[in-house]
């Protein structure tokens, strides 16, 4: 049980990365980066989408080889050629895009690749016990027997952390761990992280949310365009400083939302019911309407039916009861393609899974939804010239950082993949837009940009359903705010009447009186 820990003769005191250079075709992702982290410290890594944070961490975890530079642990230069090396040296990583096998259970995911106490035979009962123990020690609630595909993102992340802890990681790299969490879950995660730091773990924390960085970290290193701009103690930094260091200019942290004349209701839901993946009702009679030119925010703790709501409207999940009416037409049970033609746009929550084809190029992904329409196609022939022009336009307008339109989408940084989906969906000038967590994992300047786009879309008369766990975002953008709890709308309030406290209470299940 404890052999993984006792295997390591010496704990990590200090990890240094010196002069790290990493080139990809067309990009210098890391440009002579010096970075250091010590035991007991939470070191935040900040930078815009594509600044090179994930690349640097992948190098530390042995997934990428640096073109130049070296890594030293406790002053001694080490070669990290593979994740196996990294794990043996006591380095663990929670990836920006989770590395879990969905068809396996939680225990199986944890046990994967580890020697078993019974040799060739799996010792899942032993692993289960140890997971329970670790869960308790670090406050990581998870059911070891559950299948991973059934878990909500927050739970999946706890599995990822358990995987690393189970392997006795001294240094834990967390690549945007909070991007997928609710505010409450973030607090729980922070409690866990602080506990780990107190016990002598070294932690590297990546996030785009400045208040998180300010509240959790001891030191901050800011990257821009693959270079270190500055490393400073968090106590000496302010939000504005960090934003300026990251972006290189002043950033607007809140968008203007000019008044708009509301039109007719374009999206109407009547007593909508639907089951979750586990087969239990996740939507329990949702009725609401969104008018042309209106943004209706859906607030709520994740797992209260928001995902199912979005999927049902987008035609990806069959409702068990109720009706969906878009622009006066009953669209209940329509295929996604038909809905698309009817003017629905959907920005899915799990963009890496639902919204994109990773192996296709940026251009192909951008044209995916209108590749059969004029002027991009006539009959069965595609007009590649027009498509290229269209793609280049979107890449420029939405500031998608990519070496070229032909780059495979999977080579883009996380935030840029997000911008690609957004560009594709908004460019179709939809009547109804379902935006699920549109700025999750997106840096502050891109967030600012996306918010402006949503507001611009609103001015054009789009009816928007904005699903977000970020209360700031909801309050900032919505005209009205509906709170979901256990598959129902517990109340709808006007934006200027809403307060964070009141919404928080409703999110916890208190009905509005």
């Amino acid at each position, binding site marked *: 049980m404890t052999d993984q820990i006792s295997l390591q003769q010496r704990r990590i005191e200090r990890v240094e990365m010196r002069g790290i250079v990493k080139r990809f075709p067309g990009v210098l992702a890391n440009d002579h980066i010096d970075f250091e982290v010590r035991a007991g410290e939470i070191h935040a890594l900040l930078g815009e989408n594509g600044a090179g944070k994930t690349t640097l961490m*992948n190098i530390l*975890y042995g*997934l990428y080889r640096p073109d130049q530079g070296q890594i030293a642990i406790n002053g001694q230069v080490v070669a990290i050629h593979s*994740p196996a*090396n990294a*794990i043996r040296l006591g380095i663990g990583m929670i990836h920006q895009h989770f*590395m879990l096998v969905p068809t396996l259970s939680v225990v199986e995911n944890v046990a994967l690749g*580890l020697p078993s106490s019974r040799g060739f035979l799996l010792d899942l009962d032993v692993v289960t016990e140890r997971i329970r123990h670790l869960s308790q020690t670090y406050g990581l609630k998870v059911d070891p027997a559950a299948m991973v595909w059934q878990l909500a993102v927050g739970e999946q992340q706890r599995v990822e952390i358990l*995987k690393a802890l189970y392997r006795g990681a001294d240094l834990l790299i967390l690549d945007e761990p909070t991007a997928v969490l609710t505010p409450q879950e973030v607090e729980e995660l922070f409690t866990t992280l602080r506990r780990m730091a107190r016990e002598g773990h070294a932690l590297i924390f990546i996030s785009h949310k400045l208040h998180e960085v300010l509240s959790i970290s001891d030191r901050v290193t800011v990257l821009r365009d693959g270079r270190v701009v500055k490393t400073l103690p968090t106590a000496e930094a302010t939000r504005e400083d960090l934003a300026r260091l990251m972006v290189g200019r002043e950033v607007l942290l809140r968008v203007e939302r000019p008044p708009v004349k509301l039109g007719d209701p374009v999206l109407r839901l009547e007593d909508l019911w639907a089951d979750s993946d586990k087969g239990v009702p996740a939507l329990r009679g949702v009725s609401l309407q969104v008018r042309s030119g209106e943004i209706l925010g859906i607030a709520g703790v994740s797992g209260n039916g928001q995902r199912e709501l979005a999927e049902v409207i987008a035609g990806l999940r069959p409702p068990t009861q109720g009706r969906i009416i878009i622009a006066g037409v009953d669209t209940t049970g329509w295929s996604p393609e038909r809905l698309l033609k009817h003017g629905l746009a959907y920005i899915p929550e799990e963009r890496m899974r639902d919204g994109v084809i990773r192996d296709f190029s940026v251009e192909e992904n951008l044209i995916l939804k209108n590749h059969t329409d004029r002027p991009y196609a006539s009959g069965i022939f595609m007009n590649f010239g027009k498509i290229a022009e269209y793609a280049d336009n979107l890449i420029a307008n939405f500031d998608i950082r990519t070496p070229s339109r032909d780059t495979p989408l999977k080579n883009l940084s996380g935030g840029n993949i997000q911008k690609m989906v957004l560009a594709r969906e908004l460019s179709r000038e939809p009547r109804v837009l379902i935006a699920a967590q549109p700025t999750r994992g997106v840096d502050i300047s891109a967030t600012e940009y996306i918010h402006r786009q949503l507001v611009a879309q609103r001015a054009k008369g789009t009816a928007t359903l904005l699903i977000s766990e970020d209360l700031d975002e909801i309050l900032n953008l919505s005209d009205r705010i509906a709170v979901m709890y256990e598959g129902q709308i517990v109340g709808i309030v006007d934006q200027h009447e809403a307060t964070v406290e009141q919404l928080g209470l409703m999110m916890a299940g208190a009905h509005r009186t």
Partner: protein
Amino acid sequence: MIARLFSLNTIVGIITAGIRLATPYLYATIGETLGQRSGLVNLGVDGIMLMGAYAAFFVTFKTGSLALGLLAAIVVGGLMGLVMAFFSVTLKAEQGITGIGVYLFGLGMSNLLFQKTLGTVETVSGFPAIHIPLLSDIPVLGPIFFRHNLLVYGAFALVPISWFILNKTTLGLKIRAVGDNPEAADSLGVSVTGVRYLTETVGGMLEGIAGASLSIALLNVFQENLTNGMGFIAVALVYFGGWRAVGALAGAILFSTVNALQLWLQVIGILIPPDFAIMMPYVLTIVVLAFTAQRVRAPAALSKPFERGEG
């Protein structure tokens, strides 16, 4: 006529033959299942079976040793699996095309060797039937289950063994993970390449045994294209069986029993034209496949070469 068709003896005969004939399918299907669970499609099964069948027959014919014959089939099958792995894992070649290449190689090479070394159809005395004491005397069940040769018993033993390995061992966990999310397995230090080489090589060995079961246990001859497409049926049975050993068993038995029935119908020469009779098991496979295909999910990384994100 009808009475003869449905007499107890006939039914026992057909089921017994069905069990016997399931043998090559079982080895080949389980071999292929192993590879597919780790994310590799091998369409060259039939070619590997032919080479295994030839090697087993030739060595047995020359040395008189069934054990050496079987060993030869295992070695040849394993080598061909290794070659398949080299192309699809190391060179990341398109797996469907590589498989067809391996098939055509096996088909041509086994025939060439047959022409050069044997020339005519010879026979060997293959693995003898082993009557299991007591059990083989039970009426009906005895002849059906307990009077077979070693390779038949081996094939059936392989079902629980492969189930156990896939589901209860650390290796099996790695295989399943590599087939469903190689990136995740890689990030935990599991060697995706190593696992895939292993499953493909062991799969090849089993496919070699599948060939040997024809040439030195069931038919005891070798001739051009002895397998006559059995390897392709085995690939279909993997899907049919939903990538599970038990499913492979059900598929193999169903297919071979219908086949035995069809042979019997031809022997007594009634009811249906022979061409149609020969089609029966294949048609059945397609029909069942069409109905079961949607319900089970293939390994997510099936036929996709693995590459770390690095360009």
